[in-house]
């Protein structure tokens, strides 16, 4: 509960109907996916609840956000901002925190067809934006978390890998102008957005150094460095015909596959061979999707239930699969891309199982275009989270995969995580193969304490493993504990990050549970 005078001030800002500090509301906002193993990792009871926020606020514009943040500074109350709110990163880390649920900030400010970018508020979903950009032949990069999440959150605050990354890159690298309420309540506007005259969103860097480097890194600051109220990011040419027609009843839709799409699922047999094939395909700049998944993971993206996974024998029997989706705007482009693929298939002695041994439901193509494939990870146990999360060459991604198999198997053997033979990873290329990322989706049962604790241990051991073996910094390096673990092995970056936190959040008002505290 808030002090009466603070509550009244918040009510004045957002209206009484948009603040709630009641027991029911605040308790409901303390729940999130994966909180149980995050708690377990922190030595707490493995429950899916974080600290209970003091109140939940629903601001509707940047001015309201600014005023709330100022009140927080005045009364020394922390804030945690969330957009679509999926995952533990949205949760307060102390009981002195209010949640800013940015749901009411849901406008597409503009889709600039000519300058190829969109400007959105926090609660515009990927699918919403995609539906609108398609109308002008463009598409948006959506993260693996799915089309229901906020592209603003992905661009400013979270991570940003997506299934369409060969074509649409990484969220962090697509950012243009940004409107940002700093933890002290000042409003910063990056790049051309900060011009006093003729302000626009076309670039987010400068004048001079780019403050995008303070805003986020490979991972975002998860509200630890302020609240992002608008962001502009690049749009990409829609990869094929924008016809998007479904029939039937959910979830068994039939999709009229648009012109000029072709799927390849290839067994590369070995990781060495996969590396060569991966690089070659990406060098040719032909893929819309180019991902390695374990055979189990691959089966999952073609299935909408655990039962339907079992009839994917030609797929789940593959050793080292690669899934490539090519898409083209014109017949010429399509023929060229198919020719390139055919040549690669011959040169590398590969066989496409699609069309010969297996044909996915047409809905797969709709989900690929809508970036809905990541959500299939939930079909087996209902719970999953990825360990790993490194990003550099395909080589290090594959090496990480291979080296980590025994580690994963250990936990599979204990029966605390789902059995994917230890090979369950997702590796995708970015920007036509200029870099790659790996994550290791790991299935666990969030209702089973043993499994949750095992998942937490598995996560921690993976972190240690990646650190000791120099495999790169995983996704979950956030929060003081992890930064203090990795920082000393990584040029003491944590010291610099702390200085940034201190300079931009002198009162420590932006909740740092998933960022870093100034200490």
């Amino acid at each position, binding site marked *: 509960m808030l002090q009466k005078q603070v509550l009244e001030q918040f009510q004045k800002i957002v209206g009484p109907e948009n603040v709630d500090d009641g027991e029911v509301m605040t308790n409901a906002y303390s729940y999130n996916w994966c909180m149980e193993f995050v708690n377990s990792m922190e030595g707490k009871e493995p429950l899916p609840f974080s600290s209970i926020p003091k109140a939940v606020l629903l601001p509707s514009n940047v001015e309201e956000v600014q005023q709330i943040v100022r009140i927080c500074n005045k009364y020394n109350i922390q804030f945690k901002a969330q957009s679509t709110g999926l995952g533990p990163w949205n949760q307060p880390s102390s009981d002195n925190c209010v949640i800013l*649920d940015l749901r009411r900030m849901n406008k597409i400010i503009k889709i600039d067809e000519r300058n190829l970018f969109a400007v959105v508020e926090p609660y515009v979903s990927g699918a919403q934006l995609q539906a609108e950009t398609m109308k002008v032949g463009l598409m948006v990069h959506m993260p693996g978390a799915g089309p229901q999440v906020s592209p603003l959150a992905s661009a400013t605050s979270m991570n940003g890998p997506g299934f369409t990354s060969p074509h649409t890159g990484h969220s962090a690298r697509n950012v243009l102008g940004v409107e940002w309420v700093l933890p002290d309540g000042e409003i910063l506007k990056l790049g051309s957005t900060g011009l006093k005259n003729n302000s626009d969103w076309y670039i987010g860097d400068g004048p001079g150094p780019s403050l995008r480097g303070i805003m986020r890194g490979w991972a975002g600051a998860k509200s630890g460095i302020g609240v992002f109220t608008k962001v502009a990011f690049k749009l990409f040419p829609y990869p094929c015909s924008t016809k998007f027609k479904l029939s039937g009843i959910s979830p068994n839709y039939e999709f009229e596959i648009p012109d000029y799409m072709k799927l390849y699922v290839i067994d590369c047999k070995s990781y060495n061979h996969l590396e060569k094939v991966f690089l070659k395909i990406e060098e040719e700049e032909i893929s819309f999707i180019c991902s390695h998944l374990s055979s189990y993971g691959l089966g999952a993206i073609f299935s909408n239930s655990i039962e339907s996974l079992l009839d994917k024998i030609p797929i789940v029997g593959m050793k080292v699969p690669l899934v490539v989706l090519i898409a083209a705007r014109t017949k010429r482009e399509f023929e060229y891309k198919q020719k390139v693929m055919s040549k690669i298939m011959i040169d590398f002695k590969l066989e496409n199982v699609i069309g010969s041994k297996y044909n996915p439901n047409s809905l797969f193509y709709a989900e690929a275009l809508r970036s809905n494939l990541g959500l299939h990870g939930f079909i087996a146990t209902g719970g999953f989270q990825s360990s790993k999360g490194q990003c550099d060459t395909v080589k290090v991604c594959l090496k990480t995969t291979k080296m980590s198999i025994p580690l994963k198997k250990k936990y599979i053997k204990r029966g605390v995580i789902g059995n994917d033979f230890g090979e369950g990873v997702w590796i995708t290329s970015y920007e036509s193969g200029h870099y790659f990322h790996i994550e290791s989706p790991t299935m666990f049962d969030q209702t089973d304490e043993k499994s949750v604790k095992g998942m937490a241990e598995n996560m921690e051991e993976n972190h240690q493993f990646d650190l000791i073996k120099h495999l790169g910094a995983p996704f979950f390096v956030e929060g003081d504990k992890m930064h203090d673990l990795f920082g000393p092995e990584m040029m003491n970056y944590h010291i610099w990050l702390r200085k940034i936190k201190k300079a931009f959040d002198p009162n420590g008002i932006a909740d740092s549970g998933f960022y870093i505290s100034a200490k």
Partner: protein
Amino acid sequence: MMQLNEEEYQMMIKRCLRCSICKWIPQVQIKSQKYATACPAIDLYNFHPYSGGGKIILALTLEMDRIKPSEELRDIVYKCTECGNCAIACKFLNTLEPLEIIMRLREKLVDAGYGPMPKQEAYIQAVKKHNNPYNEPHENRIEWLPDDIQIDPNAKVLYYVGCTSSYRRKEMAIAAARIMNEAGVPFNILSDEEYCCGSPILRVGEINTFRQVLNKNLDVIESKEIETVIFSCAGCYDTFKVDYPLYRDYEFKVLHTVEFFSELLEAGRLKLTKEIPLKVTYHDPCHLGRNAERYEQWDGDEVQIMPLISINIPPKPKKTGKGGIYEPPRSILKKIPGLTFVEMERIREYAYCCGAGGGVKSAFPEMAVNTAKLRIEEAEDTGAEIIVSACPFCSTNLQDGINSRGSKLKYFDISELLMMALGLEPEKLKQILGEAA
């Protein structure tokens, strides 16, 4: 039956991913930013617990004693039309049953003495006293029936009129009856032996009272050697078709008028002679669409194939809206000469709710009308001149939405439009064509 038992409920409330899929229509069906959402409650009240997933979290926090039953909790749980759109979205990939959980949560609040809402309690008392939630005298139930309608006391077809058509939307009852007369279908009605179907009672969690009215209705119908019961009310239809069998089996067949009339049209027993050269859109009532799917019997086994991973053999059926009645009303409209049929963006199993269901119309009239306004706006955006539906509850609420929004749209029940096309309402047809011109 596939309905959740307590054990499944307890397990399921621990499994929400808080992914917010439930707030949207199926992701692959989203066609615009404006009409992407699925849930009136979260659309209007914004705090996460108003969503389907949010209510699953409330259920969990309640079970874990993190919160106590309270009016605060009740007000959130009852600000929900139980339209079930969240459940369709969730089950695109997941296996949770947010609608079932909401219904169970209401039952628990009733048991704890917090539910239903006072106005809902008032209409339950009215049902107990007068057999209808409107507190109308039971003897007036048949007042809607014009003298020229032919009723056959020996007919095997029963027209179950329902409280709303009997007392509030009499035009629907009249239209249904006239069309059956036109097709030469002998039918009977229950007259003063017809009682509330219990839908508004069931939806707010008053199971005990619901059982009583259910038995009362089935006892009467089963005493009359009825083969088929026809409903013009989607709510009554859904309750008979889907909910009654969970408590008591019956032998007769149930059909909604749109199904029945569509069959009559196909069989050539109804001739559409009048042109209606207007643009018309159709609103799928939740009770006739996605929710009108029966629970399927499942006697399979849950088999653990490896640690943590179990499968159901055979696969457990999911209620995904596939059993809803979508095509018959569309087929009727498409057969009307001169009529141009246009679809809204959210249709069939992911249609947006009119806002009246789940006891909302009585307990939270403002929420109901605000939801209707959203739906009317969607209908307007199709360019339609007329919105039709097939539910008296939708009828009342969408018309309130039209009035409140100042919309130029006209609302008709599909049977009214059918009557005009059959040439049974020449004056009315002339009037609407004149207004459209």
